[in-house]
């Protein structure tokens, strides 16, 4: 990684030097250095939340150059941005280049590391002192994207694109086998590629584009028993026999293809009347083969037998068709009065078929008699179809000076058909059927822009006639407001408020939830060199819904609350070659999962010359959970960086 990092930085430096050798219009900046971390407390929780590492780090790089010279050339504008390359688990690189009326190219790369290992999550053995939980992830995502436009600005513009996504790495998971759960080591390698091509056009007042893409998906996951985990989560015997695994292997391979068609059209139908239409269609298809082999002393309540081996083979095929079309007309019906009318239709269906063949080896019944191998064969078929039709209208004013008013209305008709696989049914009810729901939405809003004051308010209300899943609301009302006051460059005040109330009073569901969120920010700039910012926020959630506990089918309310407050302060000071910034933020929640989070950041910059400088950074994170102190951590991150810019 260090070698690759050095090559990368070297490349950027060479490019910067080359591009600026005859600098007519080139801007670049580079921020490169080293950072160190010092973590005490729970390192897994630190990595799950922050995950900054130590080592070389290219914090940022930016280069923009424009070549206005006559004569032949490969590009007349070039821009490169890079960030987080090295010790940061999130890295990106973007390049855009082009030659007027010839081509336009955009290339991007992003690298993200996903780490998650928490003591209390997916951990049935937490009370016994086992940590972290049984589902952990240490994987990385790499994404490459390339888009090329040929002859930009012409009547017809060929378009090409390519995307490559790789998600891979290890994880810990679990398998439920033979009336016990066992911890697994899991390895995933998954690649998604998409090739696309099409044309853009601009003819006679209409413009648009048609793109055809093909997405290919290939995934292989291999799971094996975690060394030492053969006793399972529950060493208690089942009917006198311990349930253990001697070995476990599972390999799943999935391939998929998805042709994707998208179309877009916009243009003037008449003076002041604009048509916008779009269409997309994606035809997903996946094929999966899964082979599982488990050996040990196992039990099956379904067969009423003990057994010593399970061989499972699954062949599955799933198809899903998604399409949606949208058309709307925007018209200025009166001077300063706009009306928009639109219609959207969406369709999605799924057909899934799986053949699941199991061979239970060396079975005996619970009395120890009748030894034999038992095989089962399940053909499971699944189908879901969802259709939605949305009609909407919106009216807005645009000639009331600083005042802008709008109001909207929409109606969505949703239909869902679910045909569950027979194998899924364990307790009758709730697995399938036809569900219809109509949601009517009314909304309105206003903005006012005066010299120093900006006010905005918007409101929406949804009324539904039915709930498809229990957490669907029947009524929802949301208010949002924002106020900004600016006193020259000296002072800026921003306040926002949001209130959401949703409910479904149907007996047996009794759902009610409210969200309240206020924020206030003050930015003071007493002199150009100094800026001070203070913020305070309150975030409250109260939710209640009736649930039925499985063990006795009793009813009880499921209550969830958040009562969070956030405070933050920051200061920046820059004079001459010296710059200083500091920030502090605190977030505290006294609702469910009470916690406190403090973050401090301090940095200073100094330019030795007009183009060369250095910066020092220090970040501190302090995380405290009230109920689960094992999650707590303190982390300090130090960094020294060289800054080079023109």
């Amino acid at each position, binding site marked *: 990684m260090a070698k690759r990092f050095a090559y990368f930085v070297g490349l950027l430096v060479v490019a910067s030097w080359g591009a600026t050798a005859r600098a007519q219009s080139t801007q670049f900046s580079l921020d490169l250095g080293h950072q160190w971390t010092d973590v005490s407390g729970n390192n897994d929780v630190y990595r799950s939340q922050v995950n900054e590492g130590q080592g070389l780090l290219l914090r940022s790089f930016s280069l923009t150059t424009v070549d206005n010279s006559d004569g032949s050339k490969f590009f007349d504008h070039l821009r490169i941005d890079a960030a987080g390359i090295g010790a940061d688990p999130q890295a990106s690189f973007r390049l855009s280049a082009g030659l007027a009326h010839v081509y336009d190219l955009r290339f991007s790369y992003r690298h993200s590391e996903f780490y998650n290992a928490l003591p209390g999550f997916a951990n049935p053995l937490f009370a016994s002192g086992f940590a972290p939980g049984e589902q952990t992830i240490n994987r990385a995502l790499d994404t490459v994207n390339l888009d090329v436009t040929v002859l930009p600005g012409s009547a017809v513009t060929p378009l090409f694109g390519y995307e490559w996504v790789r998600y891979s790495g290890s994880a810990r998971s679990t398998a439920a086998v033979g009336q016990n759960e066992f911890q697994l080591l899991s390895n995933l390698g998954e690649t998604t590629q998409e090739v696309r091509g099409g044309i853009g056009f601009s003819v006679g007042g209409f413009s648009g584009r048609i793109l055809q893409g093909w997405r290919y998906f290939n995934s292989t996951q291999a799971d094996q028993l975690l060394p030492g985990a053969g006793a399972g989560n529950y060493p208690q015997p089942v009917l006198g026999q311990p349930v253990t695994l001697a070995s476990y292997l599972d390999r799943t391979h999935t391939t998929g293809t998805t042709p994707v068609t998208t179309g877009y059209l916009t243009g003037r139908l008449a003076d002041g009347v604009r048509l916008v239409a779009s269409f997309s269609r994606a035809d997903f298809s996946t094929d999966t083969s899964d082979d599982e082999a488990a050996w040990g002393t196992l039990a099956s309540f379904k067969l009423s037998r003990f057994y010593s081996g399970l061989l499972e083979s699954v062949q599955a095929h799933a198809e899903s068709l998604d399409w949606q079309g949208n058309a709307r007309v925007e018209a200025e019906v009166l001077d300063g009065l706009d009306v928009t009318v639109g219609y959207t239709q969406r369709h999605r269906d799924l057909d899934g078929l799986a053949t699941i063949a199991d061979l239970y080896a060396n079975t005996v019944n619970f009395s120890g008699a009748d030894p034999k191998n038992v095989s089962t064969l399940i053909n499971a078929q699944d189908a879901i179809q969802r259709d939605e039709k949305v009609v909407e209208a919106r009216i807005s004013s645009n000639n009331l000076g600083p005042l802008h008013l709008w109001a909207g209305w929409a109606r969505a008709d949703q239909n869902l058909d679910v045909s569950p696989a027979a194998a899924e049914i364990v307790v009758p*009810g709730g697995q399938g059927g036809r569900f219809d729901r109509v949601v009517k939405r009314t909304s309105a809003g206003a903005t006012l822009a005066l010299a120093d004051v900006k006010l905005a308010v918007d409101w929406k209300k949804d009324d539904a006639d039915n709930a498809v*899943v229990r957490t669907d609301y029947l009524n929802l009302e949301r208010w949002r407001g924002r106020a900004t006051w600016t006193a020259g460059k000296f002072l800026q005040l921003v306040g926002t408020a949001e209130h959401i109330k949703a409910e479904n009073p149907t007996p047996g569901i009794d759902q009610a939830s409210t969200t309240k969120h206020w924020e206030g920010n003050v930015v003071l700039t007493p002199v150009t060199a100094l800026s001070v910012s203070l913020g305070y926020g309150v975030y409250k959630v109260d939710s209640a819904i009736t649930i039925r506990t499985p063990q006795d089918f009793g009813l009880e309310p499921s209550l969830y609350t958040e009562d969070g407050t956030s405070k933050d302060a920051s200061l920046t000071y820059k004079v001459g070659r010296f710059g200083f910034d500091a920030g502090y933020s605190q977030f505290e929640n006294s609702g469910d999962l009470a916690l406190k989070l403090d973050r401090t950041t301090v940095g200073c910059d100094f330019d030795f010359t007009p183009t060369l400088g250095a910066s020092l950074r220090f970040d501190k994170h302090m995380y405290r959970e009230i109920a689960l102190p094992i999650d707590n951590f303190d982390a300090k991150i130090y960094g020294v960086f060289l800054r080079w810019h023109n």
Partner: protein
Amino acid sequence: MSTWFRVFCAVSVPSLLAGAALAATAPAKGPDDAFAPCSTCHEEITTPFASNPHVHEAVTGKAVCEGCHGDATKHAEKGDKSLIKVPAGAAGAKVCLACHQRTPEFDHAAKGFHASASVNCTDCHSVHHSPATAPALLRTNPSTQLCESCHPAQQNLFGKPYAHHLGRGGLECVSCHNPHGGRGERSLKTTSAGELPCLSCHTEKQGPFVFSHVSGFEGNCLTCHEPHGSNNPKMLIRARVDQLCLECHTTLPAGTLGSQPPSFHDLRSARYQNCTVCHVAVHGSNSSPMLLK
């Protein structure tokens, strides 16, 4: 890693080296050629404007400035500010959109949330005074600072313990949102297949799965997750997984979708408070109707 690196090198190295060589050898063209007569009085604007992308869009035979400011002849003769068009506010947005409103990305730019007297193009973009390192002529770099100046509440959600790492490694608000989009879900950048932006990165949850969690049809990622940030692990909307599951998986009353767990799921035992220990394929499975693998 090696594959992406090869792809990256194949694209970027030739571009970079060619660009560097060209920039090093190309004769510079004086700004006066393109900006006359404006550069006579406004050199502080026209000189840095040479690296502005609008220079290339305005290659129409006219002076660059006239592309947005119109005919400057009278203004140049008399020096009267009222004789030159200065695009600003909602009216100024129309000047921008005359060229920019041709693609789906700008589909709602004229009637969307960021198109009013309060908020419009020049609140976020500065054609003349954008910092050199800022992309898309934004007023700040990174762009998240602009979003945060009006949306501090959303900014603070990213300050919760389990959150997307906003501002790091190129992850910005605009990674998922289209500021020129419409309201609600139309402000989201969907994948080429029209899926939520979540699936741009979390590709393993795309499916289709033979045994799909129906939330993929009736609902979406936001049914269970807070996209900006959450107090709860995995950015869930509930602190306990069994609580989240049971709020849908209770067959009471009849008529809603969501099966009831069988009675051996005794929630008094830690074993059954952790639904995803067994139901590991909670986003969908091709081999287990119960989403067990």
